[in-house]
């Protein structure tokens, strides 16, 4: 495989990663909650697409649209009933809580769907040639869909009233309260949007990813690594971090013999540690320092 081809594959995967971690990054940026259940939302989206495909033959890309309202409600309710209770409390607490949520979700899915690997095979699973490079069709579609959704989210945050309240809440909670923003509702809506987007990402990769109940941590670890690379709650940063991780992962798989599909977690882990040890502020200085204990 030529270097350019490898680079292309990395970029296609990376663009998707950038979109996949947006929910994680925004929830952290806005509420200071580290959502260890992030990967589980990806998993839920993927299962949704799989079930829709099997039952009704619905294409995963359509499922990706359908899954958003469903998971919006899940995210909203979970935030409203559970997570809002710990927003003000130390990181330790929200970490443990979301760890509990992550394990519960994964095991509920195991009970329902068993631990077997599932897959979705779409008719357009092949690839096409362009300018001497091979474009895997599904990954290309996902890449552009991801970019499109990122742009949409950016516009939503910048232009709409709701988006502005979310940004206000992220910057100064107290001030947001004073100007009459119902902070709990804003948090719940933010969580709904983030969980919905994350599940969309999960539904979109259903055709190219084995689906099983314990796939979540692979994505959560990636989310951490990308956040370390690209900073918190910033869409361009997420894209850049995603691209970096995608390219490094792909190049390593190709050029270092013996690394298989499991390379993702290891690479993410190494990047995470290397970046944060050498640059505690994150690669682009976009990381909000984690306040000790509070």
């Amino acid at each position, binding site marked *: 495989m030529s270097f350019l081809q490898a680079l292309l594959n990395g970029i296609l995967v990376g663009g998707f990663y950038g979109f996949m971690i947006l929910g994680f990054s925004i929830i952290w940026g806005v509420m200071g909650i*580290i959502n*260890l259940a992030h990967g589980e939302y990806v998993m839920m989206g993927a299962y949704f697409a799989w079930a829709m495909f099997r039952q009704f033959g619905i294409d995963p890309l359509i499922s990706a649209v359908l899954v958003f309202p469903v998971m919006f409600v899940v995210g909203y309710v979970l935030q409203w009933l*559970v997570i809002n*209770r*710990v927003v*003000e*409390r*130390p*990181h*330790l*607490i929200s*970490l*443990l*809580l979301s*760890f*509990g*949520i*992550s*394990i*519960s*979700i*994964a*095991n*509920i899915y*195991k*009970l329902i769907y068993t631990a077997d690997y599932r897959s979705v095979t779409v008719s357009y699973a092949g690839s096409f040639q362009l300018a001497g490079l091979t474009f895997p069709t599904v990954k290309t579609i996902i890449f552009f869909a991801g970019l499109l959704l990122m742009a949409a989210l950016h516009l939503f945050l910048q232009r709409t009233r709701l988006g502005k309240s979310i940004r206000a809440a992220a910057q100064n909670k107290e001030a947001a309260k004073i100007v009459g923003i119902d902070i709990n509702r804003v948090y719940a809506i933010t969580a709904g949007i983030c969980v919905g987007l994350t599940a969309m990402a999960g539904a979109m990769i259903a055709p190219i990813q084995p689906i099983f109940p314990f796939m979540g*941590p692979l994505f*959560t*670890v990636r989310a*951490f690594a990308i956040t*370390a690379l690209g900073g918190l709650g910033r869409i361009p940063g997420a894209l850049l971090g995603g691209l970096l991780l995608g390219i490094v992962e792909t190049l390593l798989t190709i050029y270092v013999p013996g690394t298989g599909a*499991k390379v993702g*977690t*290891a690479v*993410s*882990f190494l990047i*995470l*540690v290397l970046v*944060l*040890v050498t640059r*505690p502020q994150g690669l682009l200085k976009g990381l909000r*320092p*984690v306040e*000790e*204990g*509070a």
Partner: protein
Amino acid sequence: MSRFTPPSASENPVRRYDIWLWVILVLLAALYPFTQPTTARLLIAIQMFMLITLASNWNLIGGMTGYVDFGHLTFFGIGAYTVGILMTRSGEVIFAPQLSFWQAWPFSGLTAMLFALTLGAATLRLKGPYFSIAMLATLLAMREIVRLFTPLTGGGGGLDLPPELNRIQEYYIALGLMALSVGLMWWIRNSEFGLSLLAIREDEIGAEMRGINTTLHKTTAFALSAFLTGLVGGFWAWQNTYIDPDVVFFEPRNLEMIMAAVLGGLGTVWGPPLGAAVLYWLREFFWNRFLFAHLLGLGLMLIFVVLFLPGGLVGLLQKGRVTSVLDLWRLQPAHEEET
């Protein structure tokens, strides 16, 4: 100077003498084998002692120092494999004489500690959540690494250890380990070292500004915790007579260790033993009928405890404020209750 209180009176008297209660409990437990219990009962006791030990060790880094370690089972696994490899693989892969359990056992703690020192040099520089996720990734990676190094670890096929079944002896080892771990926690909690760990948990920059070498202190806590966890792992491998990646890096064990500490009370001396005992009781008499949902039960329980019992059982006992289930709901907003 009129209101100067002498140091002895300034100490909480309960905290000074509670260790004797522990000593009495341990001595009573030491008498248990004389009542001719069945092997099954001894095994239950051994498993419970191990869970208490693990929870107490986890509490040292996760509860007292505030570095929530989601991958602490790594050290358990390293301990287990150290004993397994030293007892079965000499001559073939490693050029060392075949060791008996007693010769191999100390190495399980030492390798775990060395690994913790190496790993801690990088991960302990990560703050809060980054540390947690890095340790979780370490655990996931370690399971794969063990699977890959087949010549040394037996890969997925595992290792068979020479069986040397003497449950009474095992009972006393487990009891001794537990007594040591919990006793050590008590000692640390009452020492300046323990105070400094609590300070690091609450405000690391502040602790640093007041002259505490936070890196040294938290690395020490991490290494000590890993050492004891490694010892438990080594002992576990020996008494189980068989290890493979799935039974050693058994996810429910990782979660139970954390859960017991959280349920009992993070950062308290008596929380993890209490939490582990309650959790173990629940598992033996209730969840065993719903084994398929064991992890789900633990996950839901973690959510419940974090939301409604932030101080854990110890916090509950100290406050003595809960008289009905309804009170649990009301307890939630009280921020100062957090440990």
